[in-house]
């Protein structure tokens, strides 16, 4: 019971951090001449005010959750994957290529294959920095960032080149693909924009939880993250597991990209930037995962929260004339506050551990006596 309460309080830390960030947001709204209550009210209204709003929130949460699951795996093994944006793009490109190549094939075959292809493409794009880290000791933070830029240029090249919509060739040459066959649309769940992807993502969250906490490989990944040196001493091939976790991390981002294409956009267009396709989900997924305490199941509600913030931001912009970019800034603050409050959580854990040890010692001396 006591443990339960303790872990509940631990879980509440990110919530406090978010409240702090929202408080800063309220001050910023005031400074910008808007009423914070109106602003946040509009935000809530926009995110949850109608069935459509709920659906949009869930749709926005889906890529955050998928990317976040990958982040859980990577960060748990002690490697930092900042390449979610590029991995999403590569997953999207691989999956859309398949759908565009076989427009008359049955959806039941193409859609699963396309999602798998996205998963694999993301895995490759995440695996390369993993390999470079294991083999050449290249800092993965930097290499994943570089891989993002390369992926964007690759996308621009393909959308201007082989993947361009044939109708665009004679006309304005807007770098966009044709629409995928409607037979490939991920099934809608209710008559909203909500698609099957969210169910898939939630299901995968449970799978990743099982993987990390109930399998040997998952255990080793976490062990490497907790103490690289002890793990090596215990005979775990540390480098191998760091590559694996970056690879899996990339795979989930790649899947996020594929789901985004088959569930939401059904075609790809580029404005030359990564965010033009991803909506910065590759970064916001990190925020969601951190908020969920790097726990796959915790990442589910966290993704919904940030999905809601992103959807509600537009409504807030309409109601208060404060640009939706405020939410990006607040997301940054949430990250900062969450990682900063980590020290207090660790102190609590340490204090509990010491208390526990003393109790054991007391017990031991009693039985001796």
């Amino acid at each position, binding site marked *: 019971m006591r443990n339960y309460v303790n872990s509940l309080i631990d879980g509440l830390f990110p919530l406090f951090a978010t409240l702090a960030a929202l408080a800063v947001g309220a001050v910023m709204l005031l400074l910008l001449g808007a009423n914070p209550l109106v602003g946040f009210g509009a935000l809530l209204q926009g995110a949850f005010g109608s069935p459509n709003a709920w659906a949009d929130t869930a749709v926005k949460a889906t890529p955050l959750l998928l990317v976040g699951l990958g982040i859980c795996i990577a960060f748990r093994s002690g490697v930092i994957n900042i390449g979610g944006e590029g991995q999403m793009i590569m997953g999207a490109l691989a999956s859309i290529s398949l759908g565009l190549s076989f427009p008359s094939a049955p959806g039941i075959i193409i859609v699963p294959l396309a999602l798998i292809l996205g998963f694999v493409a993301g895995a490759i794009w995440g695996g390369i920095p993993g390999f*470079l880290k294991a083999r050449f000791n290249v800092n993965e933070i930097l290499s994943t960032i*570089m891989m993002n830029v390369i992926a964007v240029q690759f996308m621009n090249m393909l959308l201007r080149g082989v993947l361009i919509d044939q109708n665009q060739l004679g006309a304005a040459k807007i770098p966009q693909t044709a629409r995928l066959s409607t037979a490939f649309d991920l099934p809608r769940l209710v008559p909203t924009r909500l698609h099957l992807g969210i169910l898939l993502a939630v299901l995968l969250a449970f799978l990743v939880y099982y993987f990390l906490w109930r399998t040997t490989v998952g255990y080793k990944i976490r062990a490497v993250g907790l103490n690289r040196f002890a793990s090596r001493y215990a005979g775990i091939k540390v480098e191998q597991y760091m590559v694996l976790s970056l690879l899996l991390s990339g795979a989930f981002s790649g899947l996020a990209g594929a789901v985004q294409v088959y569930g939401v956009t059904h075609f790809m267009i580029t404005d030359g930037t990564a965010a033009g396709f991803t909506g910065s989900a590759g970064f916001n997924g990190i925020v969601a995962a951190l908020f969920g305490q790097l726990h796959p199941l915790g990442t589910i509600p966290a993704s919904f929260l940030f999905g809601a913030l992103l959807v509600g931001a537009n409504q807030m912009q309409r109601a208060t004339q404060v640009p939706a970019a405020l939410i990006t800034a607040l997301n940054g603050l949430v990250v900062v506050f969450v990682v900063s409050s980590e020290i207090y959580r660790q102190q609590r854990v340490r204090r509990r551990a010491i208390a526990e040890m003393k109790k054991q010692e007391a017990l031991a001396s009693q039985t001796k006596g």
Partner: protein
Amino acid sequence: MLQEFFSTTVLIGILASGIRLATPYLYAAIGETIGQRSGVLNLGVDGIMLMGAFSAFYVVFRTENLFLGLIVAMIVGGLMGLAMAFISVTMHAEQGISGIGVYLFGLGMSDLLFQKLVNNVETVQGFPEIHIRYLSDIPYIGEIFFQHNILVYLAYLLVPIVGFILNKTTFGLKIRAVGENPQAADTLGVNVALVRYITVTVGGVFSGIAGASLSIALLNVFQQNLTTGLGFIAIALVYFGGWRPLYVMAGSLIFSFVNALQVWVQVLGIPIPSDIAVMMPYLLTIIVLVLSAQRARQPSALSKPYMRSG
């Protein structure tokens, strides 16, 4: 076509614009070098640059006072650096992740302020080119080296200064000691936290200037995400340069020359897809990281928060 490419005009153009384009990388990377030598990895450089770029742009847009714009950018950058120092030194937060938070904050905040306060494509009159007397008249050399704006000259001046401070002064020794072995430095009476606060704040000031060099000297505009990840490249250049200012400068120059080359390749219509050309500097950076990771040794305490064990 290739002959045209190797004409002197083009070569001079590439060299001159390479030297000019290296400016923001230099400020950001040199600032980051100082912080990293003291053991703090600040991944928020790009966000700080964006805030610096916007504030400089806005001040110049309103007042047309370039130096006031520069100073405001330095202050804004310094404050964000101070915040990063507080997060990483006092709060002992994981630096790789909190830097992303600082980045997102700067990205969103600069966009927010821009939309709220300007919300138009506006240009400003940036720092003018200064032709250094006599030197700028030397054929070729003058055009390449001595016809730039003041921020370009200052950036290159900064390199030996920072190198000197790091390697030849007591304070530099303290910075390096804190970055290599904070426990030992602490025992000898060096205030680890203070040193790190100073280096990260100074790094923030430099990032602010880096942003300003874009918005009021090189491009003279501001738009959402003006830097497009330039700050992250600057961090990579620190690794490339093995944490030594002179080598960091060499890296910035190589990167910028390749970038300038890439622009000229497109201008001249040489049949390489432009997207591949844009990719080149980044591919090169990865390759260089692979090569340099073998030999360079990073500060031992890099990205490790220091806690007195009690």
